[in-house]
């Protein structure tokens, strides 16, 4: 750990990725995350690593796919409309069992939308987006320090499970500045080419083949079983969350990313008035902290989910609660960020009959 640097969230992503041993960036510019490629474009050549601005998002994700097939730590970053264009590649990467990291700095949608912060790509990131039965590990930091730390974990998880890791942030996190302390540089000389990588047969006694294609249904079913087995292990081992003032809580806000940060202020406001409110903040959106929410349902009077969308993570919270307690919702759409005061006022509407 070094000293603290005041940096923009977008630049934090790039700096942390390089330190984590990211050897190649492929991408196509889009607001509000252009500072990420800008930073990479300045720094990667100095390190003798790859920065390439592709002709489109479709080209970029397929370059990522190609680099991932060689076992190289590779990243692309984009924002909502750009991520939509990449979905075919996401699906191919999933069924090819190759590791990579993708950052989505979500903006207001649908369509071209606007450039304001949003969280409306939760479904796309967590439930698929591309076709077929697949998952990516989805992590959602809520401060720039956590973002800096989790970029390392993103690459480690991608390599460990040969899977795509999506780092889901929003435009606000990309643009804001905060002092950040970075972890030390990973020594990339110690990286070994994995034995599955397609880097030429050399003295291997067999050819490595990476493909998402299997014409025979029985064969494709086997590939699917393999993926499902992998997902089960990830669901068992990699769930991450933070709880804030939950020990004696009677109510809980569930929120991720930027809105979880605002929710912390809401929790403090409630506590000042003697209301026992806590926060459950999923850090991994997939795998989702289902068991935790199941457990907390016993002690709570109700859940209050808040997101910058029309209620997407809400569905996963409801699945975990499974009808045992009410789950209320408050969201803002189209890139509007609610104030802590707004959220608190909405929360208190539900508490009235309750006290």
């Amino acid at each position, binding site marked *: 750990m070094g000293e*603290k640097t*005041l940096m923009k969230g977008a630049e934090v992503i790039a700096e942390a990725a390089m330190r984590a041993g990211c050897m190649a960036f492929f991408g196509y510019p889009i*607001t509000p995350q252009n500072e990420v490629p800008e930073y990479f474009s300045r720094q990667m050549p100095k390190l003798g690593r790859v920065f390439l601005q592709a002709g489109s998002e479709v080209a970029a994700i397929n370059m990522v796919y190609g680099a991932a097939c060689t076992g190289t730590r590779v990243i692309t970053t984009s924002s909502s409309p750009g991520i939509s264009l990449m979905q075919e590649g996401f699906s191919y990467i999933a069924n090819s069992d190759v590791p990579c990291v993708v950052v989505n700095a979500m903006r207001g949608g649908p369509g071209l939308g606007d*450039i304001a912060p949003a969280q409306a790509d939760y479904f796309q990131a967590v439930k698929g987006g591309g076709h077929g039965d697949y998952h990516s590990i989805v992590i959602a930091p809520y401060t720039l320090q956590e973002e800096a730390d989790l970029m390392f974990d993103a690459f480690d998880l991608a390599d460990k499970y040969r899977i795509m890791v999506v780092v889901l942030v929003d435009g*606000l996190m990309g*643009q*804001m*500045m*905060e*002092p950040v302390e970075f972890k030390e540089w990973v020594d990339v000389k110690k990286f070994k080419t994995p034995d599955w990588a397609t880097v030429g047969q050399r003295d291997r006694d067999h050819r490595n083949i990476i493909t998402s294609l299997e014409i025979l249904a029985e064969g494709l079913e086997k590939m699917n079983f393999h993926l499902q087995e992998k997902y089960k292990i990830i669901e068992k081992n990699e769930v991450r969350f933070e709880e804030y003032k939950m020990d004696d809580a009677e109510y809980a806000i569930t929120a991720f990313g930027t809105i979880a*940060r*605002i929710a*912390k*202020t809401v929790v*403090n406001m409630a506590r000042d008035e003697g209301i026992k409110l806590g926060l459950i903040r999923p850090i991994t959106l997939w795998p989702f902290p289902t068991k935790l929410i199941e457990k907390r349902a016993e002690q709570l009077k109700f859940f209050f989910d808040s997101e910058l969308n029309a209620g997407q993570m809400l569905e996963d919270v409801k699945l975990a609660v499974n009808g045992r307690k009410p789950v209320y919702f408050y969201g803002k759409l189209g890139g509007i*960020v609610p*104030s*802590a*005061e*707004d959220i608190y006022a909405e929360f208190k509407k539900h508490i009235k009959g309750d006290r």
Partner: protein
Amino acid sequence: MEKKVIIAGFGGQGVMLAGELLAEAGKEDNKYVTFLPSYGPEMRGGTANCDVIISDEPIASPIISYPEAAVILNLPSLDKFEPAMKKDGLLVLNKSLIPREVKRNDLRVVEVDAQTIAKELGNEKIVNMILLGVYITIEKPVSLDSVKNAMKLFLKGNKEKFIPVNEKALEKGAEIAEEFLGRK
């Protein structure tokens, strides 16, 4: 201690620079700091504002909905933020570009003819620093010296020659603040 301020004006008036400088100074003082810019897609013109929070404790929300202090460089920004100000909040105004009175009577208002003062100091681009000097001296989120130190990180190379005039601007702002506080 937790100090929150919104700095607002036209793009190109140095609103973001003033905010970043304040944030950097807070970091130098080992405080928790958040800087949140908000502006449209245009490079110049258009309205721009930033939220800066400096605190002894970890900062939850980086968004300021109801400002306790605002440094306002133009009229559209006053129109936007005056209604949201907290009671007894501090408004530091660039009077040169704000041809109206503040409507509310429950705020602390410092009106500075910053454009004219900047011209007198020999550089019209230091309006932001004059007003920042006023704010810092009244609310004390950081010391004036920390801002001066932070400035060295921003004005490097061929911009280094602008440090003295910017320092003068901060000091002039401090002087105006002292007058406002009735210490001079």
